[in-house]
């Protein structure tokens, strides 16, 4: 089982290495979308710092969501998903391995770049550790929940938009607590409660996703 998961992880990392754009793309998307806001709203620090937390979280969510679309789709289209499912191991191993690589490649870079983004949007410096920690707890949840949608739309045409529809409603709590935690930190309020909630949601996603995505893949 471990061997099976390692095989998948190795393969997916190799694929990323062969096409590094896949790794950089969500990151640049994240940065670009955020860069649109000062253009569309107003370049003033007073306004931007008010909306910063929300904008960062929404952008992170969109970047995760869009890169999730292909999580299983490419494997489905070339027939390798069939082969993965035929292997004599439970399908949740497959799901967890793929989600892990996805997060490593699309979620982690977001977290690492977030301090710079925060600066661009005039988020107070003392809120940055909270921002990073909340992203660290929140982005795996986004990847996990998103994997359910990705599994459901595998093999369906025009999946990208559909995935959004399926999954965005499920993301609502993560967005709310993620953004609120950062906003609270910016105002110098305690954030322990938020972090506990984000962690609880991560655990919840870890429990539900392997089953839901696993069974969706086998449809």
């Amino acid at each position, binding site marked *: 089982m471990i*061997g*099976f998961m390692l*095989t*998948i992880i*190795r*393969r997916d990392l*190799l*694929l990323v290495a*062969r*096409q590094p754009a896949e790794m950089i793309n969500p990151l640049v998307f994240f940065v670009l979308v955020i860069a649109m806001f000062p253009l569309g709203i107003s370049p003033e620090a007073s306004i931007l710092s008010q909306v910063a937390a929300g904008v960062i979280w929404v952008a992170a969510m969109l970047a995760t969501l869009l890169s999730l679309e292909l999580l299983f789709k490419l494997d489905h*289209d*070339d*027939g*390798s998903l*069939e*082969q*993965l*499912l*035929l*292997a*004599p191991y439970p399908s949740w191993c497959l799901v967890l391995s793929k989600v892990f690589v996805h997060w490593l490649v699309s979620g982690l870079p977001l977290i690492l770049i977030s301090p710079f983004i925060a600066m661009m949007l005039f988020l107070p410096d003392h809120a940055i550790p909270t921002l990073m920690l909340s992203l660290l707890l929140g982005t795996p949840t986004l990847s996990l929940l998103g994997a359910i949608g990705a599994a459901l739309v595998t093999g369906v045409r025009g999946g990208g938009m559909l995935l959004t529809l399926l999954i965005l409603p499920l993301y609502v709590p993560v967005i709310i607590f993620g953004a609120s935690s950062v906003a609270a930190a910016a105002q110098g309020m305690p954030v322990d409660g938020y972090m506990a909630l984000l962690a609880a949601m991560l655990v919840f996603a870890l429990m539900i996703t392997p089953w839901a995505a696993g069974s969706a893949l086998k449809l």
Partner: protein
Amino acid sequence: MSSSSSAMSDLFFTSDLACERDFRVLYSSLNFSVKAGDLWHIKGRNGAGKTTLLRQLAGLHSVDTGQVLYPNEATKVIYVGHKLGLKEQLTAEENLSWLAGLNGFSTKLQRYAALEQVGLSGYEENAVEQLSAGQKRRVALARLHLCKAEVWLLDEPFTSLDQQGIVDEQDWLNQHTLAGGAVIMTSHQDISLPQVKVLDLSLYAGSSLGDLSREGGSST
């Protein structure tokens, strides 16, 4: 066609298997068992249901009526379908590596040897997207030499292969069955091996859904 009573010596068998798509019964009351050394050639005209049957045997298509049973849970099965399951960006060797990894373990040397067997030496480090249709199929087939699986389910494995390729492949099929494996394959071309048993799907074609509820007995 053996009855399901001799079940335990079989690699697998079907009992009263049927399939219906879009209100048309493709086949029904299909009882056949596959033993070590069998080489089944599934025939039938376009749309007869050959692909569907192979996918049911592999467990990739849901079985609603009847059963497909593998008495020994550990029986290893390889399915090579219309879609080859290769990652286009990876090289031939890397593809073999992960495909073989699904069922066990292989060394680089073994993978090179398998690729040589299918006539692809020199192409080991080419990305699969740079291979021709026939060469891709050869990569997919190389897996058969690498994983030690008892049952091979092959959907039109001669597609895109040149004539030498087809001759070679029949040779592999021969060796596999002689070594105690079993092959179930579809093809519109004839197979020139003595041990071939033909399963003509047209003999099992049903006409209406009503048939599915009947017990036993094959319809014509």
